[in-house]
């Protein structure tokens, strides 16, 4: 066999890339569908001011509780606000929540996990014990309590969710760092006198990026759901912020006879979170072969 490399024509390379994408898409129909829907939600959020036919906060009592129709695609609520416009703007709120909560949780959790995993010993036990306390509360209860202490509001709710979520990221990073801690290249770096911080950031951290991305994409949807629940019970987003959970809460007294006031925000949450979760599953299946859902 000749060891000569056969040069690949650029056109062939292009075909190969397209084929790979198509192969991936065929094997991951759900991922593609989820990604498409998610993209649509992102576009709706970005272009909300252009698409929305009304100001989502404009009150018009003469026009209240209209059934969906040509005037108002998704009807109006009891203040006469256009629900379609509110749903569009609500996409901004929910996507913002997902991004902020996950980023904050990573920003708190990753350094803790990095330090705990890298140094080990007493520092590790102490940091992990403290993290575990945050996991000792039933899910959703801690964010509720923290929001209560900070005061109601969307920003506080996001902080609360991040604070109750960070230990998951600490654990992931700690585990990943511990696995590579005794690898030759880390020892080599140490022997060459590379500083701790540099080893952590340049050599240990990159190894935990994959599990962080997987966890983050899985958690994105949960963050949206949890924030909607907080808004629903009245301690998250406050009026007039357009938020899907809050829209449902504000229609609590009248929704039985006016299904659209709750139905459309509900559908928006469901579709968005489902799309996000499908994307998350796809990311996990691609990046984390151990978790391969059996196809």
């Amino acid at each position, binding site marked *: 066999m000749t060891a000569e490399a056969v040069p690949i024509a650029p056109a062939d390379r292009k075909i190969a890339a397209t084929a790979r994408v198509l192969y991936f898409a065929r094997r991951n129909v759900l991922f593609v569908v989820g990604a498409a829907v998610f993209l649509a939600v992102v576009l709706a959020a970005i272009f909300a001011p252009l698409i929305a036919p009304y100001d989502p906060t404009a009150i018009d009592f003469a026009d209240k509780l209209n059934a969906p129709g040509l005037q108002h695609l998704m009807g109006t609520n009891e203040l006469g606000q256009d629900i379609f416009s509110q749903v569009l703007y609500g996409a901004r709120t929910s996507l913002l929540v997902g991004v902020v909560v996950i980023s904050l949780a990573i920003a708190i959790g990753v350094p803790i996990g990095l330090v705990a995993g890298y140094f080990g010993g007493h520092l590790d036990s102490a940091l992990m014990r403290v993290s575990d306390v945050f996991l*000792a509360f*039933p899910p959703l*209860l801690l964010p509720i309590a923290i929001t209560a202490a900070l005061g109601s509001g969307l920003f506080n709710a996001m902080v609360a969710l991040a604070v109750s979520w960070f230990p998951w990221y600490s654990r992931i990073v700690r585990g990943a760092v511990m696995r590579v801690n005794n690898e030759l290249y880390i020892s080599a770096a140490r022997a060459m006198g590379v500083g701790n911080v540099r080893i952590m950031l340049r050599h240990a951290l990159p190894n935990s990026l994959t599990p962080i991305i997987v966890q983050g994409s899985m958690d994105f949807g949960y963050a949206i759901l949890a924030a909607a629940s907080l808004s629903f019970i009245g301690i998250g987003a406050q009026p007039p912020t357009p938020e899907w959970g809050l829209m*449902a809460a504000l229609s609590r007294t009248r929704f039985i006879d006016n299904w659209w006031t709750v139905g459309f925000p509900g559908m928006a949450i469901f579709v968005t979170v489902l799309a996000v979760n499908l994307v998350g599953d796809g990311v996990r299946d691609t990046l984390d072969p151990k978790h391969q859902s059996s196809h």
Partner: protein
Amino acid sequence: MTPYVIQRLVLMVGTLIGVLTVTFVLTHILPGSPVEVMLGHRPTPDQVAAVKHELGLDLPLWRQYLRFLGEIGHGHFGKSFLTSQPVLQDIGQRLMATVELTTLAMVCIILIGIPIGILSAVKANSPIDHVVRSLSVAGVALPGFMLGMLLQMAFYGWLGWLPLQGRMTSTVLLDHHFQAVTGLFLVDSLLAGDMVAFRDVAAHIVLPLATLTLANLPLAARTTRNLMVEVLTEDYILTAFAYGLPRRRVYFRYALKATLIPLLTVIGLTYGYLLGGAVVAEYVFDWPGIGSYVVRAITESDYPAAIGVTIFLAAAYLIINLTVDLLYFLVDPRLRRA
């Protein structure tokens, strides 16, 4: 076994102190002061000082912390601003409503979710498995409060079969007063032999129960499936199949035993989600349990009540997890020897 139990108990007390510390930090360092709530608008400086002294807020922080631990340790959770009753008494009055709801939901999830998960794993990659997995992916995306409101619209609004909210119709309650023996209305009305009351109570619990069950079923079924799939690919199971043992015997003799421990884990986890989910479900259905109590406490700045319920639920969750861990010993003889 005993050293392990002691070790776990010590660990739990440690975690509990951690929980109390987190709660203390939340209430004492962050903004939002109970003094404003107690005194309303524009109190005089003297009034503020008096209340601060009464609550111990004029002490140095570390003494406040010790005082806080001591009070909780003695079971003093303070008085609710809203009901003017001791918080523990409030919790006691509402606890059984929550227990009735969450326990029944747990039973439903065990009876429905776990068998579905096992079936899905045994028939992995069959049409049944795909249906179960699709439904559970979709189910996780629907928030509990939305599910509850949808059920209300369907079964109260359109069909008119079930009541909208509450635990009992007030008129029925007046005519059919039954002795509160257990605090579980379903049991108490049966004990009293009052079928009218029982039917009313049962009709009221259906929707909140369905909400709580359906909201947590997908996760339980999916986790069970994944755990069972793992067990079914173990070497000794493959060996059993390779020997040509009957499938049923492999599943029930060998696989089922090995899944008992992961299943206990699922149950413990699910209970946590139920406690959190109950807060939202009780709020939707105006269910008079501690979930709706804590929501009201928080939205109306009733600090002692909010703190009390938070600590109480966290402690309950810790105890449930400890129980689950101890049950491992009953189920798995290998652990007892270790």
